[in-house]
């Protein structure tokens, strides 16, 4: 680290101490001695030299990841401990943060050989519940509904699984949920004063008071799905089906280079499948009946 580099911001998220030159919407300020991750402002290369994986907006190899968001910023994530950001003029802190605390940290977590699930996590009735699902399944809405019913938030959208203890835990992420106006209306929460994720979208950063800061062993993983039939459907998975859905709901699995990182992912997902029960909870796709879903969770957790 260069002596000239100044870091006015320090945060703790996903169990990591983060020093940053830029403010990050949603992350929780923290005081610590040793940083795990540095976020710097600086130039981001157009291309990686040795690309293993790529999509329209990103390139990656085992230790580097580049994301170019045309109207927002470019991000360069390397070695699991550094993110360089080159913001576009006029981009807001909220929108720069959206692709930082999401995709960029997802890549960083893979680089650190941890397992990020596309899931929100809540402590509810003293049980640690991981709620995985594809975009639009209702993870954040359900997480917030459980918080309203007395739960505490552990993570929204990305749940980083920690295998350092006897049982797998979820690393506390940060006390904020990204949530759509329609869901806020559904949960009777006003949008007044909330920071939008993007200026044009009716999607907001919702600060959550009840946030869990400790590692808790995961009691149950629910996969939140939708279907076009009436009523909730519940199915507990066994054996290889558990591994298959955990792979499917790994955050940004496609971004993992098909080399050592993928093998590492296989080992971790398998370990999780063996140790934790996994239940599919499918709801009608045009209905989010909070009461029924919370009851189904309570009865099956």
């Amino acid at each position, binding site marked *: 680290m260069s002596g000239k580099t100044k870091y006015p911001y320090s945060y703790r998220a996903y169990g990591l101490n983060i020093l940053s030159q830029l403010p990050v919407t949603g992350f929780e300020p923290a005081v610590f001695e040793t940083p795990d991750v540095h976020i710097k402002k600086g130039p981001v290369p157009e291309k990686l030299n040795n690309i293993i994986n*790529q*999509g*329209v*907006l*990103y390139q990656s190899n085992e230790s580097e990841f580049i*994301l170019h*968001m*045309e*109207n927002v910023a470019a991000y360069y994530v390397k070695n699991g401990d550094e993110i360089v950001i080159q913001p576009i003029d006029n981009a807001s802190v909220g929108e720069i943060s*959206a*692709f930082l605390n*999401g*995709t960029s940290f997802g890549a960083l977590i893979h680089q650190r050989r941890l397992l990020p699930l596309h899931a929100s996590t809540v402590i509810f009735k003293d049980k640690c519940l991981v709620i995985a699902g*594809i*975009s*639009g399944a209702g993870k954040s809405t359900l997480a917030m509904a459980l918080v309203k019913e007395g739960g505490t938030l552990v993570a929204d959208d990305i749940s980083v699984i920690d295998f350092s203890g006897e049982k797998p835990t979820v690393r506390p992420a940060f006390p904020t949920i*990204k949530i*759509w*106006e*329609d*869901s806020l209306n559904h949960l009777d929460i006003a949008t007044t004063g909330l920071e939008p*994720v*993007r200026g*044009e*979208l*009716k*999607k907001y950063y919702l600060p959550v008071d009840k946030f869990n800061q400790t590692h808790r062993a995961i009691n149950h993983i629910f996969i939140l799905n*939708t*279907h*076009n*039939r009436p009523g909730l459907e519940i199915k507990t998975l066994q054996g290889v089906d558990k591994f298959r859905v955990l792979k499917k709901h790994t955050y*940004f699995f*496609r*971004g993992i280079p098909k080399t050592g990182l993928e093998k590492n992912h296989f080992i971790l997902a398998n370990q999780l499948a063996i140790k934790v029960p996994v239940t599919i909870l499918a709801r*009608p*796709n*045009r209905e989010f009946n909070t009461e029924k879903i919370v009851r189904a969770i309570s009865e099956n957790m």
Partner: protein
Amino acid sequence: MDDLKKIVWLASYPKSGNTWFRAFITALLHPEEPDVDINNMHPSTIASSRQLFDELAGVPSADLTPAEISHLRPLVLRRHAMESEEIIFQKVHDAYSILHNGEPLFPTEITKAVLYFIRNPLDMAVSFSHHLATSIDKTISIMNNPDYTFCQRIDRLNNQLQQNLSTWSGHVKSWVDDSGLPVMVIRYEDMHNEPIEVFSKAVAFIGLIKNRKEIETALELASFSRLKQQEQEKGFSEKSPASAGFFRKGIVGDWKNVLTKEQVKHIIDVHGPMMKRFGYDIDV
């Protein structure tokens, strides 16, 4: 496969025979399967799939503006073609369009061919109203609205990306006249009346070499009654939640039993020229 021309667009306004053809193609390409699983058909995703976009773009479309998504869609589809080892049969309900930056939404360089499915709008209106679970009059106004767009709400996450359908006539024109792509137009009514001939021509147009026996077998496996029976037994994931069933009657000319004179006139007043062009009687 170096050539990027890997995508066969199965393009249509909704409820015009697209799903029937997909079931047929699934049976044709997988003769080893004893049945067509309607919930796992070969061209499994629609071009407007959110998951397809998110995977290939690398960022969640949930954090992108509609303008950014439009701009990225051709690039995502291009990558879809680049990464595929085989021909992709890609269902699509969007009208063909040129984006603000001058690029086509469906790039020419990745297009192998277009099969455009068209159905008499009088029948289509009846079927579409069931699909949308709305009135015939509302459905007719949708068919007349150039700005009609699926999944347009911006206060929630829709299950698919936004798709502008244009008017019914505008949709036909966009693919058949404006796209400049190699298009074969397939009439739903001909699929019913002369299935072997019509499906054989479509198969030849997209460059597949199949004999008559193979086509007959695939048609039998993808027959309307079998698809409908399977939906009744197992459900169909593509059914709109509000409608009673995706495979309803599947017949030609049902509009005569359903539409009022005013509704028929309303459709013909707006879409008469396009109907006439594709052989649909407008002197009714």
